[in-house]
């Protein structure tokens, strides 16, 4: 099941050129861009691992693309996203965030039902990938 988080996630995966153009758009607006990765695809998992610090004062997307490539090379089978932060309101607020790499195979989520008092049903979802193992072992190695 293809997870749909962030911008463009209902589109086919962006090519590197398309990613570069989106990043150029961010830089034109003076946003700081960061690269993050995770192997826990739960929608409430907001805070992904940071791949280095957010990058400030860049003029060209080449530097960010280099970091994206480095992150992909290290975490071949994880989700990688870039987030752009807009500081114009006095706080660094996320202006754009989209996935730039996803694992080859995404097993999806299990729906958990829990009986509560008075015949109430509580629902939650658990990713099959997360159930497979601890962080780092959740997705099959690429290749």
């Amino acid at each position, binding site marked *: 099941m293809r997870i749909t988080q962030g911008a463009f996630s209902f589109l086919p995966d962006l090519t590197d050129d398309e990613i570069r153009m989106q990043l150029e758009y961010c830089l034109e607006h003076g946003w700081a861009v960061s690269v993050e990765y995770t192997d826990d695809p739960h929608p409430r998992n907001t805070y992904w691992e940071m791949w280095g610090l957010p990058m400030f004062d860049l003029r060209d997307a080449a530097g960010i693309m*280099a970091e994206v490539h480095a992150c992909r090379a290290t975490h071949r089978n994880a989700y990688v996203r870039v987030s752009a932060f807009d500081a114009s309101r006095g706080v660094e607020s996320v202006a754009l965030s989209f996935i730039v790499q996803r694992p080859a195979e995404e097993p999806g989520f299990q729906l958990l039902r829990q009986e509560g008092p008075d015949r109430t049903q509580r629902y939650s979802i658990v990713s099959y990938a997360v159930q497979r193992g601890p962080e780092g072992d959740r997705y099959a190695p690429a290749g």
Partner: protein
Amino acid sequence: MLQPDDAHDTSAEVTRVDLGAEYEASGIGEVLDALDRDLVGLEPVKRRVREIAALLLVERVRDRMGLAAEPPSLHMSFTGNPGTGKTTVAMRMAEMLHRLGYVRKGHVVAVTRDDLVGQYIGHTAPKTKDVLKRAMGGVLFIDEAYYLHRPENEKDYGQEAIEILLQVMENQRDDLVVILAGYKDRMESFFESNPGIGSRIAHHVEFPDYTGDELLAIASKMLAEMNYRFDAEAQAAFAEYLHERRAQPHFANARSVRNALDRMRMRQALRLFEERDHALSAEDLSVIREPEVRASRVFASADETGTETEGA
């Protein structure tokens, strides 16, 4: 047989190009003219910049005709004494490279050793990479680059910065152009001890010192920009000042001229302030007179041959 090059041209076949039109279209003429107009002297530098511009323009046209060669290496070294216009020319160079399409953004990031080299183990690589990322799409100008290499200290982190720099200079030639600047002799020994860097630099540009007349022309230009001028006596006195000052240590060419002018403006302001009992015309406010020039310590110490530092 040449193939139509649809990436650049929609007309049928590119078999002839008009270099003149290409030159006009690129807009580098303006940059070169501005360089000629705004910078006094520096003839060898201007000639060298023209050569590089011509090479890049021809290279671009060749590329269009399908005669593509390896993209030219654009890393440069600017050598010369302080205040000879290295940073200024680097800015113009970035503009030129941008107009020719060899760098995407055309900004200049000027750094020194402190911006690249960290203070403890593991600090250097992120710091250098951060600077390189900021410079991508433009020109990285490393002033006094030889300080990166400290032969007397094996554990110095400068070597680490040099290695990262080398890697990017080689692998990301499309993304940024590196200009190393500094004194001529020290740069030469730096290249000797780091052959990796020396061999990756295609263009060595040497900045000569200014002659006395050129410095005088620079001074007039700077004053005109600030809406000041010398009267005739002050002009003569300033020529004398330059003669004395050049013989003293720590003379930094145009930079020293600028500092001297700033001090003279200060003295002029003080004089006007002390004579504040009468109304001043625009003329009074913009003329720098002889006493303001003569008040310099350079004249006082000229006969003692005492050491003078910048700020005199």
